[in-house]
């Protein structure tokens, strides 16, 4: 962990050595997510409710998934570019150092500009938050959901990037699950068929990032009839994913170390 922050800190310094680029990236980061929400807001100029949800309720869903996703995105660094690191030989160089490869990859090219994107998620959430009747229990669920969400998205990033140990140039495949996952979670699940929601619960448990916890915050029950305790099960989903991710990552690294030359 210490090594992670030290490497990350140096990358921040490097980014600041190109100030114009750094600041446009910061602005770009804020804009990308801002315009993203504007699209949803513009949809509401044509409708009053969307899948049974108001704009602010969707803002709540949007805020929670965005905060978790953008933090995870910042933490994974160059993990998405494993294939490129394999081809360039950088991965070999990392393996001759006494810090775990995953830590080095995560800290590599750490991008502070992503703070802007996290900030935008926070802003949307803050705007939507007054519709929740806050109490300590709800606050607890919120914190639990965001922490678990970061872990869940982090695991999704790592797991699907690991595929690049098998096919080094298929990095885009992971985008369908990472960026695609964040995009799908911005919408209320009620607009999707039951099968999609089931898959997002049992196969790729992204519904635990925001859907079930936000239903609790809003005091509603799941329209698909999921068990009530799912609303508190985010840490459990995160834990299961961590186990799977550790297995997949080790398998990937083992494959690299026993098939290369």
């Amino acid at each position, binding site marked *: 962990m*210490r*090594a992670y922050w*030290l*490497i990350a800190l*140096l990358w921040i*310094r*490097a*980014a600041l*050595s*190109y100030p114009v680029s750094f600041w446009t990236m910061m602005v770009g980061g804020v804009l990308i997510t801002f315009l993203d929400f504007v699209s949803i807001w513009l949809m509401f100029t044509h409708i009053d409710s969307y899948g049974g949800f108001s704009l602010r309720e969707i803002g709540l869903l949007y805020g929670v998934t965005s905060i978790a996703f953008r933090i995870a995105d910042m933490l994974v660094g160059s993990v998405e570019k494993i294939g490129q690191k394999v081809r*360039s*030989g*950088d991965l*070999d*160089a990392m*393996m*001759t*150092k*006494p*810090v*775990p490869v995953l830590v080095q990859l995560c800290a590599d090219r750490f991008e502070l500009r992503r703070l802007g994107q996290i900030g935008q998620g926070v802003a949307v959430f803050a705007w939507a938050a007054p519709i929740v009747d806050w109490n300590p229990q709800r606050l607890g669920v919120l914190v639990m959901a965001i922490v678990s969400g970061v872990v869940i998205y982090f695991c999704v990033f790592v797991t699907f990037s690991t595929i690049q140990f098998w096919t080094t140039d298929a990095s885009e495949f992971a985008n369908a699950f990472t960026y695609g996952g964040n995009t799908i979670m911005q919408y209320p699940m009620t607009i999707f068929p039951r099968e999609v929601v089931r898959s997002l619960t049992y196969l790729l448990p992204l519904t635990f990032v925001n859907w079930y916890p936000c239903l609790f915050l809003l005091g509603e029950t799941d329209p698909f009839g999921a068990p009530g305790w799912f609303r508190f099960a985010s840490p459990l989903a995160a834990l299961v994913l961590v186990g799977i991710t550790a297995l997949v990552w080790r398998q990937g690294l*083992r494959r690299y*170390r*026993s*098939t*290369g*030359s």
Partner: protein
Amino acid sequence: MSLIEVKDLSREFTIRKRAGLLRRTSVVKRAVHDLTFEIDAGEMVGYIGPNGAGKSTTIKMLTGILVPSGGSAQVAGLEPSRRRRELARRIGVVFGQRTSLWWDLPLRDSFELLRRIYRIPDKTFRRNLEDHVAMLDLGDLLDTPVRQLSLGQRMRGDIAAALLHDPEILYLDEPTIGLDVVSKGRLREFLRALNHERRTTLMLTTHDLGDIEALCDRVIVIDDGTAVFDGPLPSLRTGGGASRTLVVDLVDEAAPIAVEGAEVVKVEGPRQWLAFPAGSSAAPLVSQVAAGYDVADLSIHEPDIEDVIRNLYGG
């Protein structure tokens, strides 16, 4: 026990080829095959061979990056593939064609980062930084971003970086590639001093035989995954099946010289080249020639190491 012990080390990998629209065939290729050698602490060993002979595969197994498919390797008493991270603290690796420095950061920051990664004690770090920076002439470059360094400067930076944590072994992969003559000379001098003063064991792969001649007491030649020669540099010359050459300048042009134990390989006016086995003495040959011909001048040429190695690969 030796510092590096390699026994019957093998490494296979599979190449898949498209044989039809959907059918694929796979060929098993042996990158390294039954390789055996030992290197003692303080040795400077040249590890040479043609491209694809298995040099970098060997280094990757010795650093623990790759898992061997057969045989065993022990480095500093550790099995590299199982204890890679532990071993990493005791070895230094420099890949000549790419840098392990951080491209956008000044050299000083890269060093600082490595200090934290390797958890180098302050005293060691300061001493090494002072020593290496002075000897590698990096003093003025510490605040320059790596991307602005020349190839030679970057290589020196990379070597200093690999030595900050006092490694017992330094692996160098093509350390002088692309450097000019002056930089090469300086680098070799530094490595010699390092080995002399700190007893750092050096294993270097190179295509530049000048590196070998300047640095290595011992050479391991690898071809097609297996060692074809292992011994001191002088015996590579004699043992390689190469020949020495006696160059004779006669007073007048003459028919090719006929003497026992040598044969004429080239005639150019009054000058003739006689090849004789590198292992035998030149004295009897010289006296024979002097007795039979009017000689103006004589000289003996040692075999060119490149020819020797070319012979080895060919045979």
